């Protein structure tokens, strides 16, 4: 019993930092609807700034003063980021801001490396709080007790701020109904900046408060962001009490998991999230999202049309150029093109459900990697001929998508996104942990194509035929009745249902088709690289695809493909530089600000304006 209680205390102590960071993210999301991937970066900044300040300020006052100042400093940085990066793009299409926050992550990573160096910093101890107190005979670190005691005060302070002050009224009003804030005569830009600063400050405090239990290092931004999103989603996006309950729930379950199921550490929280979302689709204390809440802001999508004669000619010319490439290009350019086509097909498959279906998936890598693994497993374990194993890539990915889609499709918006994320994490952990079959992160190696395809040029044509073929098929389907039905369900689910369209079933089918196409890309990928590792199933792989789709332009048909091409070239180019993450981050932020409708969307707008035509020209 004493042991269990001590475990519970450990869980509570862990929950405090997690709650601080998560409450910040939840506030930001609730008011501004920004899914802030960079939140982990503010947490990391909090840790580094905290370490630096604690070294400067000695003693009790110095320690706690440093923590206080850290929050203020990170809050100021947050306000700066909001004003410079996010404010120009609030009117961009839904969730577009997450691309900008991704750029912010990259910039902060390199800046932190420049300022604090590569080496891990051990956090200073809280003065006078080294060692343990014994509670029922079990040792409990003094600092744990202190932060367990502090957390309720922070929760209370936030609660007071939100429920008892004018600022809080505005924040709540904005969380419930953004239009209303404007009606109350409040400067929305100021409110957003303030909330973003507060949310960032909370993340900074979280980073500083955990210092005596850990330290500061350059990987902590990515290491916490998964857990933070899980907590916010389980609690219900925008709900502070929900975030608190979820932080405690996750932390305590983690502690129990460590003791009774030590292998569970990788997936436990994602399993919990999946279960919670399946039972309560909007989290423990969240509320249903109003349709179109994620801002049908920005210009509505224009009607689609297949390319006219000029466009078709351009596409044919491009294809002819690609087909003729081996005549004059060197081997590496072909390899680069293979990578590009694979990524373009992967992005196009995500774009299909995201653009036409309005389904924002955070876990699309499960199908890309799933397809790659399906083919690789067959080759590795049964020596299946490449031609046959290759077919299993799209097939297995499609089946996986049917399975995952069955649970996810019933959810909408961010909750749909988070459930796909949870499932992709489960698939990842399967590949990562089931070593007898998948060899864990040693991966599956020596997965090479049959002799007739093993040369670079034959494989290039193979990729071109299937990759470009896949993209064209997807494009054709967007113009088909099925694609229209998908778009109808996105534009107005109510109207679609009222004209006999089973929206969920259409989305389910589209989700599976996107899975098949991602799996096809994964199949081409694995035989071009000769190996596959769990990295292809990571959250980062899903986000890569997501980012290029947004960057290319969600409300355009070529967005995914163009975004993928842009990103492949930009990365290939920039990673040669010393501080490439900084440069890439700035490039992404610049593109986002200059082209808020994505590259293709903004080019089209520019084109329309140049021709000086009205909307009739788009026909």
């Amino acid at each position, binding site marked *: 019993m004493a*042991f269990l209680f*001590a*475990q519970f205390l*450990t869980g509570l*102590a*862990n929950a405090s930092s997690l709650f601080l960071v998560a409450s910040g993210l939840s506030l930001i999301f609730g008011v501004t609807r920004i899914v802030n991937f960079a939140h982990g970066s503010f947490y990391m900044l909090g840790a580094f700034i905290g370490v630096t300040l604690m070294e400067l300020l000695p003693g009790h006052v110095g320690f706690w003063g440093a923590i206080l100042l850290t929050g203020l400093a990170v809050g100021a940085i947050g306000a700066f980021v909001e004003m410079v990066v996010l404010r120009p793009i609030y009117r961009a299409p839904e969730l577009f801001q997450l691309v900008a926050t991704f750029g912010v992550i990259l910039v902060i*990573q390199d800046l932190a490396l420049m300022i604090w160096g*590569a*080496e*891990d910093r*051990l956090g200073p101890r809280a003065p006078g709080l*080294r060692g*343990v107190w014994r509670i029922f005979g079990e*040792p409990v*670190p003094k600092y744990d007790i202190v932060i367990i005691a502090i957390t309720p005060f922070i929760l209370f302070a936030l609660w007071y701020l939100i429920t008892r002050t004018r600022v809080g009224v505005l924040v709540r009003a904005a969380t419930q109904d953004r239009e209303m804030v404007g009606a109350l005569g409040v400067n929305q830009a100021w409110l957003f900046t303030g909330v973003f600063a507060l949310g960032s400050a909370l993340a900074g405090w979280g980073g500083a408060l955990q210092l005596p*239990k*850990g*330290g500061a*290092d*350059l*990987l*902590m931004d990515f*290491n916490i962001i998964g857990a933070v999103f899980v907590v916010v989603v389980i609690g219900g996006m925008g709900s502070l009490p929900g975030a608190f309950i979820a932080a405690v729930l996750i932390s305590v379950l*983690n*502690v129990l998991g*460590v*003791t009774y199921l*030590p292998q569970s*550490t990788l997936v436990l929280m994602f399993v919990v999230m999946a279960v919670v979302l399946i039972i309560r689709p909007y989290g423990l204390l969240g509320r249903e999202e109003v349709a179109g809440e994620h801002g049908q802001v920005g210009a509505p999508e224009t009607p689609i049309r297949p390319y006219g004669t000029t466009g078709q000619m351009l596409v044919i010319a491009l294809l002819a*150029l690609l087909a003729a*490439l081996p005549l*004059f290009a*060197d*081997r*590496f*350019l072909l*390899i*680069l093109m293979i*990578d590009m086509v694979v990524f373009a097909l992967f992005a196009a498959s995500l774009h299909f459900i995201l653009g036409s279906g309005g389904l924002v998936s955070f876990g699309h890598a499960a199908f890309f990697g799933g397809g790659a693994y399906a083919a690789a497993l067959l080759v590795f374990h049964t020596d299946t001929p490449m031609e046959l194993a290759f077919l299993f890539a799209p097939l297995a990915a499609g089946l996986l998508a049917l399975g995952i889609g069955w649970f996810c499709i019933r959810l909408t918006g961010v909750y749909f996104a988070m459930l796909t994320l949870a499932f992709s994490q489960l698939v990842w952990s399967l590949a*990562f942990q089931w*070593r007898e079959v998948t*060899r*864990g*992160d*040693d*991966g599956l*190696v*020596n997965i*090479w194509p049959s002799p007739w395809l*093993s040369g670079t040029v034959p494989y290039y044509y193979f990729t071109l035929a299937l990759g470009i073929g896949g993209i064209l098929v997807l494009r054709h389907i967007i113009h088909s009745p099925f694609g229209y039905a998908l778009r109808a369900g996105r534009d107005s689910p109510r109207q679609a249902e009222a004209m006999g369209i089973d929206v969920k079933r259409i989305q389910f089918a589209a989700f599976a088709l996107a899975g098949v196409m991602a799996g096809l890309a994964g199949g081409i990928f694995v035989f071009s*690289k*000769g*190996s596959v*590792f769990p*990295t292809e199933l990571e959250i980062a792989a899903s986000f890569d695809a997501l980012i290029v789709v947004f960057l290319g332009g969600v409300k355009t048909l070529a967005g995914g493909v163009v975004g993928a091409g842009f990103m492949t*070239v930009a990365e*290939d180019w920039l*990673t*040669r530089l010393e501080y490439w*993450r900084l440069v890439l981050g700035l490039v992404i932020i610049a593109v986002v600000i200059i082209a808020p409708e994505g590259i293709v969307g903004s080019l089209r707008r520019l084109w329309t304006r140049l021709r000086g035509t009205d909307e009739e020209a788009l026909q």
Partner: protein
Amino acid sequence: MTLTRRMMLAAATALALAPAAAMAQETIKIGEINHYKRMAAFADPYKKGIELALKEINDAGGVMGKPLEFIYRDDQGDPAEAVKIAEELMTRDGAVMLTGSILSHVGLALSSFAAEKGYLYLAAEPLADSLVWGSGNKNTFRLRASTWIQAAMLAEEAAKSDAVTYATIAPNYAYGQDAVAAFKENLKRLKPEVEFVAEQWPGLFKIDAGAEVQAIERAKPDAIYNVTFGTDLAKFVREGTDRGLFDGRPVYGLLTGEPEYLEPLADEAPEGWFVTGYPWYAFEDGTPEKAFVDAYTADAGETPKIGSLVGYLTAKSIAAAIEKAGATDTDSLIAAFEGLEIPDTPIGTLAYREVDNQSTMGAYVGTIAIEDGKGVMVDWTYKGPDGYMPTDDEIKAMRPAE
């Protein structure tokens, strides 16, 4: 050349941005692929070690009369990206062979790629046993002492103690699992009565240290085997020390003594742990080990890490192999690497075994103590891999037939 063709070429070049380096052929180029950003704390000292060796090599006239040059590329820790860069280095930049990688999975991807395309890859830092055993191939050589070797050294020491029940804690991925399996197998062989009463598997860099310590304490083991490193190690040591987990228990720590992990712990380094590492501060004047430390410190402006030594030995190995081959084609280089012997390195003679392409680099083992507010290894010795390896026949059975 027609105008169209010239334009196409220009377009193609612009698209892929062929680096300017491709023009000069006077140097011998080595393609070096690493995770310079993602694992900056490890890759930086490694790169500085290479730079030091290159300076020495080129000051002495280079190899085959030409300067040796490394082209460094960042793969973001992504195996697929590494394979792409490898192709570019070999086909466009004129590299004669590949080296690099810290992460095992990237090393494995490069190894498979090298075998398929007929390139040579020297895996500098990846520790995975399978790199030269289960997934070994003739195109891949490996420098650093593998997980198995270092775990076997710790198991040998553990077998001398009275401890019968053990708890293990290792990051939950291939390296951690291999390290635990190797320790178990070696210890069981030496001392069959040992029992493993708890196995803890925190996620890499996501340790819940308080909970892990409580879970191990609950199992009441006689001794503990630690594989965590980096921030996980720091948190584990803190919680464990505070909660008295290490009181009266021998702890065996894989890599714990390496400066990369020991230095950040400062005065909180876990005293009394028996570890593998790199005691650069304790070498005696006049030894080649000390000479390297001095040269490195002077050149890099900082004290060496284990990565510095690995980087240095990587460049030295490559230079020696090229000299021996007298040519830079892959077949000659592979032939040169097989059984290659390099005398007078900081760790004495370094050789590459013919049986599995593994180098004879060993490891330093010793006990952690605190001196001047810093953790150091005391009572240390350097041990070569002999005696800690499976037999040649066992290795041959593991390696795929060629």
